[in-house]
């Protein structure tokens, strides 16, 4: 993973996503829960006339983090023409945009769990912490 990465905090961990995949960051979204949907779907919200499906990334990645702070900041991804469904996911808060170069990026270490393997594409070694780059293609494929 190289290039600009948008970082965000989730469950006290630092995650990153390729900034070219991000459409926008929304704060204070008023979403409508969808009862009877899968537990990792938080709800739907109206983004300028378009319906965005919001995901709970924590549940999706299998974190059992119960003390969820009531956040309503979310990252909305760009939609591709052949997949017009708009998706977004809730985050705790946004971080910086960092430039990642080749040397800093590394594939997942061997002992990363199954879940991580599926949802993370690589690890970036920042100065004082590790940045987990998520792979939206895998996350939202189902």
């Amino acid at each position, binding site marked *: 993973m190289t290039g600009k990465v948008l970082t965000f905090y989730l469950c006290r961990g630092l995650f990153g996503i390729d900034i070219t995949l991000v459409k926008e960051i929304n704060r204070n979204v008023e979403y*409508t829960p969808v009862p*009877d949907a899968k537990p990792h779907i938080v*709800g739907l919200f109206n983004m300028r006339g378009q319906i965005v499906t919001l995901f709970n990334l924590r549940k999706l990645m299998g974190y059992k983090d119960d003390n969820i702070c009531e956040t309503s900041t979310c990252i909305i991804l760009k939609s591709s023409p052949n997949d017009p469904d708009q998706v977004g996911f809730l985050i705790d808060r946004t971080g910086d945009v960092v430039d990642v170069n080749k040397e800093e990026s590394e594939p997942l270490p061997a002992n990363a769990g199954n879940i991580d393997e599926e949802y993370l594409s690589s690890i970036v070694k920042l100065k004082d912490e590790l940045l987990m780059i998520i792979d939206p293609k895998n996350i939202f494929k189902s």
Partner: protein
Amino acid sequence: MIENQEFIQDFVEEAKGHIESVEAGLLKIDELSVDLDVINDIFRAVHSVKGTAGFFNLAVIVELSHSMENLLGELRNGNLKVNQEIIDLLLKSNDCLKAMVEDVLESENMDITEYVEKLAMFIKPDKVEDAGESEKKSTYISNKSTKTNAQKDSVKEKTIPTETTVVEVAQEDHAKDQSLTIDQQDKEMPVKNQGIAVEDSIRVHVTLLNNLLNLASEMVLGRNQLLRTVEKYRKDIPGVEPILQNIDRITTELQEKVMQTRMQPVANVFNKFPRIIRDLSKKLGKEVELQLEGVDVELDKSIIEALGDPMTHLVRNAVDHGLEMPKERENQGKPRLGRIILKAYHEGGYVNIDIIDDGAGIDIEKVKEKALEKELISKSELSAMGEQDVLQLLFRPGFSTADKITDVSGRGVGMDVVKTNIGKLGGTVEIFTSVGKGTTFRLLLPLTLAIIPSLIVEVESQKFALPQVNLQEIVRIKPGDNIKKIEYIHNSQVLRLRGRLLPIIHLADVLELNRTFSDPVTGKRKEERRKTFYDQRSKKKKIHTEGGASEILPCKRKSETNTIRILVLKIGSRKFGLAVDVIHGGEEILVKPLSKFVKECKCYSGVTIMGDGKAAMILDPEGIIDKAALKFVDEQDDKPESEMMEASEAMKEQQNLLLFKCSGPETFGIDLSMVSRVEEISLNDIEKIGDKEYIKFRGDSLRLIRPEEYLPVGKGDSQSGKLYVIIPKLVKHPLGILIQEINDTMEACIRFNKDDMVVKGLTGSTILNNRIVLLINVYELFELADPAHYMVDCTKKAGENITILLVEDTPFFLKQEKSYLESAGYNILTAQNGKEALRILEENCVDLVVSDINMPVMDGLELVKRIRQDKRFASLPVIAVTSLTGELQMKAGLDAGFDFYEFKLDKSRLLEKVECVLSKRRKAI
């Protein structure tokens, strides 16, 4: 090699338009023989295609269009006579052109020699050469648009010969331009060519329109928020008020206009049918005339697009199965030329599209046979079905009544597809047919696909939209109501609704939401532990809890959650009650598709954005049945009598009454259907001739009568200057009824009071809004007031032993018609609906039937059909007396077998018709 690739899409779009107009034009020639204007139009369209194709160096398209142009030129000059062969060839060439344009990149590889040769054959040999020469010229024309001004001089000389066509074009449309030099025309030509062929519109991409629509909706939401926020400060900021109002208005208008941009005339679908009919009629050897009506009626683009296939199917069916062969038609005394009518019109918020043929009609018996043969239905089911139900069998998969399968239609696929396709658009299909006369397929379509009326409901503080199509009624159940209450079968809740058990499910349970209640003390929501509405928790709680406060709590709670709101939903024959917490009222919602992530939730059919900008899920009753695992037994059994009775109560024709007062204190009522208009007059307008009063009305004198003078009611002084005159409808010698004041108009089911007074001039009395209302019998009143004109000829009574069966469900009309007929000396039997009437017919000897059309249980149309089917009654005269005054309905009535179709309610006409029918019958005997 194609040049200028970046503009090629524009060319394709434009050329498609031209090709369409060529086709339309060619078909017009077909019908109207030679109209020079039409040929000119075609010529220009072909020419434009050629011109632009040249710009892209599309040699093959240029060649074909050029050949077509040559032939058209000959037609235009009158050197050649138009004939079918030429039209056919031009149509085929045009199709080829279309194919090339649609696949423009491959067009260079198309083989068009066949067309070019054939086209050339029609032009006299010596002209062919000429044409070759002009081809060269035409390339100059096409080049010309690419040449720059600098080159113009050199080009100019060469282009002079070819300019003839251009000048002609210019002359026709711009006579003034004649004085222009060729040089100037040269510059303007490409522009002008377009200006002629293209309409007053531009092409816009649909996504752009959709984006606009979204933005406009957003704008509305934005405005709402703005208005809400500024509300408090409106008065504090000088000048802000008009600005806000302006924004408010403009936003609404903007949204409406943007919605309109998606609307398209049905002509877009209809226009392809002339061609289809033409091809079909050739193939099948039938002679068909197509008539298009209402092509301007507009529908949402998505509906227009989805209409093409089902309509094509219906039209093909109509030509193939509907219309007979010309010979056969002649034998039946019909014109050789079969007729297909496509007709679009608005009706009741829907757009109807009729596909009408005057062919053989559908043989109901044959449909029944086929249905039994294919085991689509059982015999007992069939016997219970009315005509419409039987016709709906046509839409079952695998059904075809065609004797033989042709490659056009009859394979038994399709009709069900038509039904489902139209169903997907939120529309329905109806069939009307009469054997030997023809068939009408009627498509009822909503104006726009995306917007549906729905009811906003709430459970657990979440709002949902429920489409109103499935909603039958809303039942409110109050605690302590012994008649309407929820009862239990184990844990399942049911409600007795009109003698049947209605399963009740709670929306929150279906959606697996935790039921909560609001704590009456703290106001917080707490989890609901009661599983059922009237779970006797309160009692148990008293035992388990200590302290007075908590003992009172349950009672309070009871009063808070007591009223239960149940939406009665019906899908097909399945009916259930859906309990919700709050009903917010109706809203027209814009349906958006579900994203794939929530598709697996069965309970939703879509999502919408509500007025407050929040998303809300749209409920799918079908899915809810699935989710709640409701199992319905096949409800084919007859409805119990009690429900039928209630249904008939509900269906009873509501009457519109005009309530008014004369000088006395009594309130009078008159059926609005008998009122032509109400005029306001002043006392001074009344002139007296003898003791009779007159006013001037529409240039004529109109006699006025005061009901109180003829009826045993109170009289007062008429002092006020303002008076009203009721001018009745459907009477021969109009009299104005002078009244003092108009109270109200209201819709009501009239039940006559039992101990009714028998007074001439009054039909009876009824109670409306706790007032006694005297219903005026206009004819009797007029009889009293003007015996000379209104006295019924009593000599006619002559003791004729004639029995008339009067079928009418509205007591008011029943009473009135009965009195009319009785006054003429007929014996009257009465029935409230068709079924009853048939029973009476079985048991009694009846000479004539007078029937209403709109009736519960069995309506008049069905009744007359049954009568006609029965050999014993084949010659029994039947007269329809109805308030359905539409021409279509009248036609339907006459088609069904009524001898006469009369409107409610003209006494003398009714008697006249009765007499006329009876005397005819006498003669026949």
